[in-house]
């Protein structure tokens, strides 16, 4: 769609990880003095405890996120996802623009359903392999997740907030980060981060290894 609403959805899909990164300080907006007065802690909703089964979530991260990132980067991506889920404010006002006059609200908390899905992976592992999801070998984990995603709609990664399954939410959250885009593009573009204006006139430099990407470029 050419609508601004469509644009917002697309921007959201591109950007959730960017914001999480900014929150943890990796690619925070680095405005000059006039914006330095901008407080980063203003209006933050109280974090909620989502209570994910972390070993299972890490194991899910091992399935969904590229192994080439390295273990540390994958754990960091899972932590960023948990941070993002924890800070979600259910039914907050959605951004409205042109194109519709009604005020819309974000969805209710997706965390309970995602917790249940994670628990479901664990239960299924116990049922068919007599062990926890986290203890499964990589092939078995992938088979279980593939089964869970069999009926997931569409062939595109969704916007993480609207993901129908926690596996999709996790990978979509990572894929929306500037680091993931840099990896895919092989270049230092860092979408949705605040950058020097005139650096944009040059061809982006090749993507350099960083700790956040497990040394991959």
């Amino acid at each position, binding site marked *: 769609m050419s609508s601004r609403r469509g644009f917002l959805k697309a921007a959201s899909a591109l950007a959730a990880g960017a914001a999480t990164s900014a929150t943890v300080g990796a690619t925070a907006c680095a405005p000059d003095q006039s914006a330095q007065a901008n407080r980063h802690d203003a209006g933050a909703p109280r974090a909620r405890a989502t209570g994910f089964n972390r070993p299972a979530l890490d194991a899910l991260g091992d399935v969904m996120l590229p192994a080439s990132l390295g273990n540390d980067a994958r754990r960091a991506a899972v932590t960023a996802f948990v941070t993002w889920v924890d800070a979600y404010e259910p039914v*907050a006002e959605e951004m409205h623009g042109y*194109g519709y006059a009604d005020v819309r609200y974000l969805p209710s908390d997706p965390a309970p359903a995602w917790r249940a899905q994670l628990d479901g992976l664990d239960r299924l592992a116990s049922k068919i392999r007599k062990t926890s999801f986290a203890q499964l070998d990589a092939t078995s984990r992938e088979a279980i997740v593939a089964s869970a995603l069999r009926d997931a709609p569409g062939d595109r990664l969704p916007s993480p907030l609207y993901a129908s399954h926690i596996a999709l939410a996790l*990978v979509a959250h990572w894929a929306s980060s500037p680091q993931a885009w840099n990896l895919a593009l092989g270049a230092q573009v860092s979408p949705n981060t605040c950058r020097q204006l005139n650096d944009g006139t040059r061809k982006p430099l090749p993507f350099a290894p960083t700790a956040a990407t497990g040394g991959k470029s």
Partner: protein
Amino acid sequence: MKRQAKTIETDILIVGSGITAALMAAHLAEHTTRQITVVEAGKPTTPFAERTRARERYLAYGESPWKQDHLDDQNAFGTTWGFSPSMNVGGLAMHWGGVSPRYSPEDFRLKSLYGVGDDWPFTYDELDPFYQEAEERMGVSGEQGPAALDPRGKPYPLPALAVNYNLQQLQGWATKAGIATWSTPSAKLSQAHDGRAQCQRCDTCYPVCPSGAKYSPDFTWDALVKTKKVTLLTESLVRRLEADPKTGRILRATGNRTDAAGEAFTITAKTFVLAAGFVWSPHLLLLSRDAAHPNGLANRSGLVGGYLAGHRNVNAYLRLPLELYPGINVQHSLVSKQFMRVPRSARYFRHDLRIWESSVGREPRLRGDDGAPLFGDAMLADWTQRAKGATARVRGYYDVIPDRDSKLVLDAGHANRFGDPMPTVAFKDAPESAALRPWQEEQLRELFRTMAKAGGGEIFRMQNSNNDLGQEHPTGGCRMGTDPATSVVDGWGRAHEHENLWVGGAPAQVSASCCNGTLTFVAVGLRTASAIAKESSA
């Protein structure tokens, strides 16, 4: 005992606090010594200090950075494409994109040049100084296009936002297609200016700029209030203007606070200015009907609420044999006015053209071509392949001639807490536009096909505006003109029937061109402000 309504006295009352109101107030504050009071129905906007955080939450979740920027019971209905329920200090322009093209000279002489629509009561050249003033007050960064396509009296106040790497590639492609393009003029600072920061490509201009590089009206209000040049009353809804039945002069504005107490107020003034946009300005005039003005104020012509104007678009995504890096500066674009400045032909057609980088079609996938889920490195490898190449987005807004019955009316089926009927809006093309629409849209589609071919690319998605829901960058409802029988206000924005009532900006416009309208709304408002200032100091 009925409580006496609070009464405020002022010289100039401005209704509304959006972008036109803010810059009109700034002009008036500099050019008169009159006391200026501004009333805004909504609340103060999100403070600048909170915008980095608001941006982060918008990016993370799609949360509105402008919470509580609306009144739940004060809204418009009908074909409201282009309308926003935003009602707070700064209005919709708190989340505009900052795109600031001028209309072209032809827009002001459509009837004379093309035999469609109506001429404006002034020319482009007469508006040029007010365009310049608007650009200077907002801090517009722009590139002078070819003089024949992009006439202007003086240079832009700030250098252009640079044509970035992606746009350089796209500009080469457009040139091959025979199209002259340049950096889209934007109210985003290419260098620090007036206490505001240089743009940092944060790419959230719409809906929130964290650095202050993008102009928003709160900057002007903050300065005017701090220096005590205006009094800004928030959460105050003007519900009626009252006119002297004999002279027609507006005597007072009455209304209620929109907070829980809802206290009534009255404001007396010498001069009244409606700068509340294309919905709320005519709405207030219609609400203000009385025995002497049974159809509403300023409405002897029956045209208050009429001739709502806007434009529609055709939009396409193309794959091109280039190497682009989506995300360098997604919200910046190339613009062309080549198709706005056209000679008269058998069939009327004018449009703008914008070109952007895009990530559409280059995102990661859930499934591979075989339908199986992609995991981990397989997903990344697939994404890396998909990310190569280039997607361009192109869009043309085309001009729509408004019908007299393209209008806003009071709708008794919807009322606010005070029982006032809300507006219902129904856009309607003039017959000449309605007849041309399919052909015009096909012309745009054909242009995009030609452009794709010139670059050795292909279109993979193309669609028209998704509306018969309304039109974009809407204007009208209090159109200006020299003949009181066919217009609501004169060429300076003064109501034909009420010598001390003025309408500023978008609602006074005759038509809406085929490009983003905000700069013109402001320029037209500044022209009105200059007339008010001149009269006030006489």
